[in-house]
């Protein structure tokens, strides 16, 4: 577990600052389809930024299975 992104607040800050995606805490449980701006290109940027923050590889195959940002946060922190 990485401390830099341990909490969902830090994760939301990263999404806003690096990807321009502002989310409230409750948005983390909404399906990704609810976010028209979210796409595979942003996913690549997220992977790249998170790998830079945590200093290691992120299991991208697992990230592709997630349906919400909260699940995404879990994949990132469970690595």
């Amino acid at each position, binding site marked *: 577990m990485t401390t830099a992104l341990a909490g969902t607040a830090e994760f939301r800050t990263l999404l806003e600052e690096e990807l321009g995606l502002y989310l409230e805490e409750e948005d983390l449980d909404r399906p990704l389809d609810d976010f028209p701006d979210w796409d595979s290109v942003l996913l690549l940027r997220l992977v*790249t930024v998170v790998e830079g923050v945590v200093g290691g590889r992120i299991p991208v195959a697992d990230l592709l299975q997630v349906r919400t940002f909260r699940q995404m946060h879990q994949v990132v922190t469970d690595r």
Partner: protein
Amino acid sequence: MTAPTAHLASVGTCLPGEPVDNATLAKFVGVDETWAEMFIGNTSRYFAVDLATGQVRYSLADIAATAADRALAEAGLGPSDIDCVVMGTATPDHLMPATVNLVADRLGIDNVPTYQLQSGCAGAVQALDVARTLLLAGRCATVLVIGGDVCAKHLERDFDPGSRTSAELVNYALFGDGAGAAVLSTDPLGTGIAIRQVLNRLVGLGREPGQIIDWFGLGDRHSDRPAVSEDYKAIEETVPPLAQQMFWELLGDLGWGADQVDFLLPPQLSGRMSDRISAAMPAPGARRINVVRTVGNNGNALPFLQLAELLSQWDGPGRAVAVAVESSKWIKSGFALERS
């Protein structure tokens, strides 16, 4: 006197260095290989730059001259047989002199008209269009057509991948370098394939560019404008319908039915996109010739690489249709080939 016919006499290609797979790309530029495989679908590409050292090993003129030399050899022709050269590229070695003239010099071609088109993914077709028009007009008998791109200028190493925009990261997984060439002739040399039609239309009226490649000089080199930018969503939405329109326009012009097409050369954006476009194109019996998955998107070279693959598969009589779409200011283009 009967009107001349433009024939495809030969094709030559050049891909610089060894193929660079997704794992190697991930190692040097930090684009995740699982992501590249899933969303771009390209498994390899070639670069004029050695990613390990950053050394630029080949210029566009180098690989274009090699491809052209191979096309000439394949046609059994020498430089003195060529009476015009047309080249398409988005990434010339210099703004001046035009790369086409450096290539001509390498090949020993002189005292003939030469043209260089500033072009993207439709560039090879535009170059074929110019060449065929000159042949049909009786201005020339044998034209060398070249297309190629080298993205060395845009390939950075040793940078923090986290500092790059999404689009910049995608470009690393999408693009590659390469060159191709073809000899067109009014004599039915070599392959015995006739070029029945070439279409090339700007359809960008009122549309924002889907891709911009900028250039910089002393006065604006510190500008924060991106060197390369794309509107991926617009490209994904717009290219498939433009490709279909071009397919039907070509068939309509020639009076061919979709079921009479034996080979289809679809637009080559990326492995994943080209498979999708290709599957949706209405040529039920046509064998698809897709190459981008293994060679990367090398722009003006791609249709020549498809032609080389086509020639390796094509025996006997038949018909082939190729479509290319340029998403910069939006151009749809295509050509049709026939062997009796």
